[in-house]
């Protein structure tokens, strides 16, 4: 299979290179042949060839002659179609390579170095799939395969706008060439063991999968994250393509909206699954540690979120065109940085599963991408002139602008903190690491301000408004804000301690209050809209809300996403009230945390072919009565899940994986809406032979995961097409409306 896999990768590289070359040549031929554009483009063609020369692809002289010869032999459109087909064929070839690697994992082909290092015979089947992305070579192959899949869908749907899709497909093939070149020349996944010859002896078993990755979320977290990372290549390709071809109008935004939202959703899910993995596996009781790789996934999310918001202004009013183009350029570059940080191990991280020298490849590629972006922007910036200007600081437009600025500030702060160890080492010679306190000090207030804007935005109308309207719309949210502050103080939350400010409690109170205000604002927005529909159609409020949402799924789906974000923020604020206790526990000894009492009723060991484990059994009592929990029994009629109520016993565990001889904590978590009881088996005291148990009470953590569910639901709503409105035609006599001057720019 190694030969077949390597061959597939080589074929895919050749096809991607052909797609890039033939696609680029065809597009230039078509562009230069267009009536009225030839003279201008031939002039600019020289710039393109200077760039091509910089990239080592052409010289201006050779390029011009090649174009002349190709133009004489083949129609440019036919050439462009072969380029598109090469992209589709490339997807088949990469799929062949991915299949070969998966096949090799499942057949325990330890003659392949990657399989030897990332799998073993006793590895459970789901984790055999996880082996595909557990190492550097496999994860780069996954990147290339996902990019191929996105490109495959894009090329199949090219009839939406053949020319724009041809540009986007060619740009995607450029990215694909890079990843396949890395796979073929720098990080081959099918490399055989050193000294191995066909039919020779191979090791009896592999080294096994990293224990940190042997957890259910790890089967879906990396692919989700990669779907998000890779997916931003598509809006990037469309944006760059639209700019290169001076695409008239904003339709490219409409075309890429679904791509961008789906990608954003994948990235969001990937980030949250990673948080849950960190929470359930790393055993420190938290879910976000500002690890460089966590940051790397968060940064494109921030710029991608900013892009999703600000493109609305471009669609509606033709504003912020340059801003949007650079937002998506930055988002793509940040996904590259994320992949670089994850895979090249530039900075130390819990995610440093694979470290190597491919960093240079990524840095060079990012340099090329940035050069192309800057070059195209300079060349075509005239196409990005704004059609309208901000009419008022108090408008939906300005709230989007603020939202963008805040998101970018957060992104810059995180980027600075993430790269600071590298920068400090370069400048001072010593690596200075930036820890969680720095991020918390800066990011928490920024985040709260962002949530505040989430509530303010929907209250402001488009274009401009007056103070009178603002006052009317803000009354309810402000009441909700102060009512929440009073309730928090009344139930005993104190933002100050011993005369000084307790920042944790203070921010928690602010978060709860802002969350209440934002929720009120969003609900009021729904009710206001539903009221209008209700008056128009005589429907009840519920039916009117349903119709309202269907009429504008994008807006109201977006509001549901905002509700999800608010729920997540409430969950995050709960961390200010965490409590923990740690002690050695003998048989029948107890431990008290919050309303819970934990009694040790046994400490034992277990073994299976994959790992040995030590675990403690802890009966849990709440206010001196045995706590209860739901236990899943099975499915009725294969569909309806059946649960039964059982006494709660928690079994925190410590495993040692046999193949790698690496230990791993398995946390026991009892999750309720008000808090999580989180119990960790810290290890065995060798002197007393008794387990050391750590218990943490984490308030409101479940809200974070529930918030994700709301976000996913809201995004799905936003993805559903809205009901089409009926329009009445409006006729204006041409002579009366001064038709000789263009009404709007953008049709060039």
């Amino acid at each position, binding site marked *: *299979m*190694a*030969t*077949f*896999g390597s*061959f*597939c990768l080589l*074929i895919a590289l050749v*096809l991607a290179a052909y797609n890039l070359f033939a696609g680029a040549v065809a597009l230039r031929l*078509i562009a230069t042949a267009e009536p009225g554009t030839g003279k201008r483009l031939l002039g600019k063609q020289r710039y393109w060839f200077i760039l091509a020369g910089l990239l080592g692809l052409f010289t201006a002289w050779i390029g011009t002659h090649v174009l002349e010869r190709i133009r004489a032999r083949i129609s440019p*459109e036919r050439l462009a*179609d*072969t380029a598109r*087909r*090469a992209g589709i*064929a490339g997807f*088949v*070839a990469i799929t*062949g390579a991915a299949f070969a690697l998966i096949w090799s994992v499942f057949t325990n082909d330890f003659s392949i170095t990657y399989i030897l290092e990332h799998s073993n015979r006793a590895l459970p089947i789901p984790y055999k799939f996880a082996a595909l992305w557990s190492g550097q070579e496999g994860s780069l192959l996954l990147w290339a395969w996902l990019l191929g899949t996105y490109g495959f869908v894009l090329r199949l749907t*090219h*009839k939406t*706008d*053949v*020319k724009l899709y041809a540009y986007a497909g060619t740009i995607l093939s450029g990215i694909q060439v890079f990843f396949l070149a890395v796979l073929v020349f720098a990080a081959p996944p099918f490399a055989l063991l050193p000294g191995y010859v*066909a039919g020779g002896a191979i090791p009896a078993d592999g080294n096994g999968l990293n224990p940190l990755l042997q957890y259910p979320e790890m089967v879906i977290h990396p692919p989700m994250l990669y779907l998000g990372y890779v997916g931003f290549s598509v809006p990037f390709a469309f944006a760059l393509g639209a700019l290169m071809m001076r695409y*008239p*109008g*904003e*339709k490219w935004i409409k075309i890429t909206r679904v791509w961008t939202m789906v990608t954003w959703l994948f990235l969001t899910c990937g980030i949250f699954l990673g948080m849950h993995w960190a929470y359930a596996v790393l055993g420190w009781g938290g879910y976000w540690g500002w690890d460089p790789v966590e940051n790397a996934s968060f940064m494109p999310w921030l710029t991608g979120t900013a892009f999703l918001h600000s493109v609305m202004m471009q*669609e*509606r*009013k033709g504003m912020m065109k340059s801003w949007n183009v650079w937002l998506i350029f930055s988002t793509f570059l940040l996904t590259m940085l994320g992949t670089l940080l994850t895979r090249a191990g530039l900075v130390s991280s819990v995610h440093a599963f694979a470290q190597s020298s491919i960093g240079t490849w990524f840095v060079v590629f990012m340099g090329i991408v940035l050069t192309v972006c800057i070059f195209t922007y300079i060349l075509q910036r005239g196409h990005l002139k704004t059609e309208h200007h901000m009419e008022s600081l108090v408008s939906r437009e300005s709230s989007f602008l603020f939202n963008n600025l805040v998101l970018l500030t957060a992104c810059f702060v995180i980027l600075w903190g993430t790269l600071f160890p590298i920068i400090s080492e370069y400048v001072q010679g010593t690596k200075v690491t930036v820890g969680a306190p720095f991020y918390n000090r800066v990011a928490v207030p920024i985040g709260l301000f962002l949530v505040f804007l989430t509530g303010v935005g929907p209250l402001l*109308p*488009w*274009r*401009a*408004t007056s103070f*009178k*309207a603002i006052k*009317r719309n803000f009354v309810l949210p402000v009441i909700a804000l102060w009512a929440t502050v009073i309730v928090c103080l009344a139930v005993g939350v104190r933002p100050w301690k011993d005369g000084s400010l307790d920042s944790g409690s203070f921010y928690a109170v602010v978060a709860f209050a802002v969350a209440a205000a934002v929720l009120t604002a969003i609900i009021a927005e729904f009710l*206001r*809209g539903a009221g*209008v529909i209700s*008056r128009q159609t005589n429907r009840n409020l519920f039916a009117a809300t349903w119709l309202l949402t269907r009429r504008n799924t994008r807006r109201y789906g977006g509001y549901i996403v905002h509700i999800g974000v608010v729920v997540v923020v409430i969950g995050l604020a709960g961390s200010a009230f965490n409590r923990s206790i740690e002690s050695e526990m003998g048989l029948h000894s107890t431990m008290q945390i919050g309303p819970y009492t934990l009694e040790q009723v046994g400490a034992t060991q277990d073994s299976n072919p994959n790992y040995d484990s030590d675990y403690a059994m802890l009966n849990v009592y709440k206010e001196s009565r045995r706590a209860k929990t739901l236990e899943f029994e099975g499915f009725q009629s294969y569909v309806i899940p059946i649960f039964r109520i059982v006494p709660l016993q928690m079994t925190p565990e410590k495993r040692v994986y046999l193949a790698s001889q690496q230990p791993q904590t398995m946390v026991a978590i009892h999750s309720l809406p008000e808090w999580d009881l989180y119990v960790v088996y810290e290890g065995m005291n060798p002197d007393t032979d008794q387990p050391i148990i750590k218990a943490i009470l984490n308030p409101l953590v479940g809200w974070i995961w529930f918030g994700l569910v709301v976000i996913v639901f809201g995004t799905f709503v936003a993805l559903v097409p809205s009901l089409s*409105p009926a329009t009445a035609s*409006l*006729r*204006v*006599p*041409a002579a*009366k*409306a*001064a*038709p*000789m001057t263009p*009404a*709007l720019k*953008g*049709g*060039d």
Partner: protein
Amino acid sequence: MTETDGLIAGVLLLFALFLYTFWPENSFASQKQKTRLDYLLERKEQLYENLRDLNFEYRAGKYPEEDFVSQRGLLEHETAELLAEIDHLQQV
């Protein structure tokens, strides 16, 4: 799968993909240049949507009467100019 089997499978795949990519096919989609009229028709849809939104937000109580009237006037003027240009281009 032996090394030879892998090589044969790879060559077969290469052959199939080569045929697919370069198969003589004359019914490929042509690349149409988007005209200003296409652009204006797209823009018209957006302006209609902006007008609908304005009316809706007014009815939902977000605009006082005087703000609404001035905003509607601006949007209608912009739409009228655009429709006039569309008419003009369609007549040419």
